[in-house]
């Protein structure tokens, strides 16, 4: 089986891994000789995990955020060294930093951050790949631009980084410099730019700076995720959204989720994968991340011209394995027709 990586959108720092720095308003395809299993998108860098334990990075590496030494930029997907030869098993990316988990449950961090997002202690602002102390039995890693939340398989929730307005933990300082246990018996989390959502057995809480107030029964929620400034969830088979709607981020309310296979949210746009393998995008699409639009006005586009409502970007001609939204980038992994 061959796999192909299709991507479009913002590309000013080579974050699409195509060897150039031009934005793309149509999907550009690359044939791979490995199988992707996860894509993590930072501010201007991208990390792709493979099923055989490699992580490939591209984009801005000026702070070492791709985990590759001594090059300011990584123009094409390039393997990140395996520390001690151990397979990588999970990956996440924030604004200018990355978190990499290996098969020994060691959590490694690289890149730059001034708000404690490296998790290495006070005034640690930049690092090459460094191990964060501890053994990490991770179920879910959530990152936003300057914050990290990690849910362990046992339900314990750890957080560090920017904690403005108690986004991670109401009882902690503005910056949490090292991993801190912030909750237990957690089922799921989602971390937006300035707020977080924590789902437990009988409760759902929203913390941080946001106008979003919701009283939801966790038992009715089958999907929950965030863009930078909005919350999206499926309740009783309907998709709902709350929060910032400056650019059509919240165009639907109560959209039926029949025929929807996957939803993935980027910084201010979203992607929907349908059962027929087509992919549509909505929200803010100024950099081509929601595909093309007939209107051309690159100098000073109006809000309407950069706002999309479910624009098809992939027609489903080949089976889609998964989709991923990034910082104004869109990614689709497809395979050969079997």
């Amino acid at each position, binding site marked *: 089986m061959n796999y192909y990586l299709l991507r479009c959108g913002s590309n000013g*720092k080579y974050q699409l891994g195509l060897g150039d720095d031009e934005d793309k308003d149509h999907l550009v395809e690359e044939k791979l000789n490995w199988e992707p299993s996860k894509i993590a998108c930072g501010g201007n860098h991208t990390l792709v995990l493979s099923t055989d334990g490699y992580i490939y990075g591209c984009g801005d590496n000026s702070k070492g955020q791709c985990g590759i030494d001594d090059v300011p930029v990584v123009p094409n997907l390039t393997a990140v060294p395996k520390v001690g030869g151990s397979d990588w098993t999970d990956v996440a990316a924030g604004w200018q930093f990355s978190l990499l988990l290996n098969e020994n449950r060691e959590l490694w961090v690289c890149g730059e951050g001034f708000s404690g997002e490296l998790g290495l202690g006070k005034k640690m602002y930049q690092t090459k790949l460094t191990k964060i102390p501890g053994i990490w039995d991770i179920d879910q890693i959530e990152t936003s631009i300057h914050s990290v939340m990690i849910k362990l398989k046992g339900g314990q929730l750890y957080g560090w980084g920017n904690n403005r307005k108690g986004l991670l933990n109401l009882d902690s300082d503005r910056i949490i410099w090292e991993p801190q246990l912030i909750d237990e018996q957690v089922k799921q989390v989602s971390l937006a730019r300035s707020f977080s959502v924590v789902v437990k057995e009988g409760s759902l809480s929203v913390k941080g700076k946001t106008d979003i107030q919701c009283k939801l029964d966790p038992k009715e929620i089958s999907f929950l995720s965030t863009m930078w400034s909005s919350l999206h969830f499926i309740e009783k088979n309907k998709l709902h959204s709350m929060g910032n709607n400056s650019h059509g981020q919240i165009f639907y309310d109560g959209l039926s989720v029949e025929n929807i296979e996957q939803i993935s949210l980027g910084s201010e746009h979203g992607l929907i994968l349908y059962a027929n393998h087509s992919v549509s995008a909505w929200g803010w699409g100024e950099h081509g991340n929601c595909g093309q639009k007939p209107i051309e006005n690159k100098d000073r586009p109006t809000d309407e011209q950069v706002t999309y409502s479910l624009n098809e970007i992939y027609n489903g001609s080949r089976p889609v394995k998964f989709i991923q939204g990034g910082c104004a980038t869109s990614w689709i992994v497809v395979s050969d027709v079997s």
Partner: protein
Amino acid sequence: METIYDHIEIEDFIFDPILQIFQYPCPCGDRFQISLDDLKDGEDVAICPSCSLMVQVVFEEEDLQQYVDQLS
């Protein structure tokens, strides 16, 4: 009419005392920018050099003195 994408408090920006500008991440990957001089003149909209998004800086005039103090 362009809408303001979001409202961001001044302490969430990173201040560069050499360039005398405030910066904050933009969803496109670049950064919103506004200069200390603009804020002193009463301007409060930070723009991104790479896209059309804008944010309003939330601040009080007396907040600016701590940044003036950082200038050498």
